[in-house]
């Protein structure tokens, strides 16, 4: 008998892998917090904000293996073999589909200027950009991202402990909740599902993932080249970046984008560097 791909056995082995993962988390448990008497060690532990580190590192390793075997090679081929013009059309189209979600978040954050920007871009690109294939509005109104995790952050919801999600990567309970709600509430996905084209949702998700990975090829290669522990580098970058997005909002009271949140102020910096 020739070896063929058997879906049932494939899923069975996936289930086994998942159960092993869950059990390893149960066994590994949480990261050991340092004794409360060692205040500097406690401060370091709190700065990392990663009480679930053993579990997170497990998910990270699985993600990294999948990335190396499938996702990264796919992204490289997409970049190398698909003409830039075609990639740009996919990018613009997928970006345009996100507009309603971005618009709602602009509104929820009390930012009418950004909301009008998003609405203008969506109208223009859908109407004059061949249904969003061409981002004709970018010369007039620059694009911005927004999501529910940011909105919750602007409203004062804390990030919670760092979380690495299967396939999706770095996150936290607040941002993961945002991703979940957006996936459920997205008007295009809802429409497709209601019309019986639920698979369209998956194609869109896969394309967005491919798009995102392709954009990050150089960044992640650079982390691989220069970091001695990519896991903690990515954790730190993700948390700082998300915080800076929230601090940078006009409705936030933080003074200078990028110089707030957990960033040491000048006094602390002088003290620690002298």
């Amino acid at each position, binding site marked *: 008998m020739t070896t063929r791909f058997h879906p049932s056995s494939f899923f069975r082995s996936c289930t086994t892998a998942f159960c092993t993962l869950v059990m390893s988390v149960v066994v590994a448990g949480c990261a050991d917090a340092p004794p409360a008497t060692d205040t*500097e060690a406690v401060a370091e532990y709190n700065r*990392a904000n990663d009480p679930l580190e053993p579990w997170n590192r497990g998910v990270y390793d699985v993600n990294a293996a999948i990335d190396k075997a499938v996702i990264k090679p796919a992204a490289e081929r997409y970049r190398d073999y698909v003409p830039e013009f075609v990639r740009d059309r996919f990018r613009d189209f997928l970006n345009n589909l996100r507009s309603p979600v971005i618009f709602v978040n602009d509104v929820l954050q009390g930012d009418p200027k950004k909301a009008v920007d998003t609405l203008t871009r969506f109208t223009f690109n859908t109407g004059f950009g061949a249904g969003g294939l061409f981002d004709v509005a970018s010369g007039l109104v620059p694009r911005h991202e927004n999501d529910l995790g940011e909105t919750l952050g602007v409203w004062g919801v804390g990030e919670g402990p760092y979380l690495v999600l299967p396939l999706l990567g770095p996150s936290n309970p607040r941002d993961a909740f945002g991703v979940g709600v957006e996936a459920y509430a997205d008007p295009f996905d809802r429409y497709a599902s209601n019309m019986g084209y639920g698979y369209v949702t998956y194609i869109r998700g896969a394309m967005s993932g491919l798009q995102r990975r392709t954009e990050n090829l150089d960044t992640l290669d650079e982390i691989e080249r220069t970091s*001695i522990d990519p896991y*903690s580098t990515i954790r730190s970058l993700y948390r*700082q*970046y998300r915080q800076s997005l929230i601090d940078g909002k006009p409705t936030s009271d933080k003074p200078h984008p990028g*110089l707030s949140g957990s960033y040491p102020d*000048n006094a602390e*910096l002088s003290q620690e560097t002298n």
Partner: protein
Amino acid sequence: MLTRRLILVVAIAFGLVASSVLPAHADVDGQQAKDMVSKLAKQAVEVMTGKGVPDSERVERFRSLFISSVDLPGISRFVLARHWKIASPDQQQDFVKLFEDMLVYTWANRFKDASDKIAVQVNGVKPDGDQGVVVDSVIVRDGQEPVPVLWRLRQTDGALRIQDLLIEGTSMIVTYREEYASVINQNGGNINSLLDVLRKKTVSMAQQQSAGKTN
């Protein structure tokens, strides 16, 4: 009597407001800081992409430029944080040397890839405490989204030196601090294990550099 006091109050208030609004600080000249950033970025690209220089010398030229403009001792202490205080003088010295290599190979390569299509646009400068300023800039490259970069500079040993770079809201020194603390803690709090890993990594980065590979 009342009027005179009022004038005094107004004068003081105005004085306070004026001193907090004026961007140039007594200790650090804002224009000088801006010029330093533009000049430095230009020099770094020149050193790494200029023609007629062997690759090994490029990196050494970059290193001297780097050492003179970055507050390496200060950054090293910040990055090791609590482990700096526990480390022996030898370990501290080893770390500073290895960290210098790490930063030089990291950045030399970035400027090498950049070619002369890269431009650093300096937008503004803000005071940052007594001895420091933050220079606001954007890195512009062909066909790519501009990247906002903040340069945190501070007066150390009579010269203005780079203390940190904030790229898209992420601080270089905070990221290193977390990465290295994590490596030390993964190895039972042993600083030597961090030094070993750094030694291996910098050696392989140096080899890649001289082999002319970009990745």
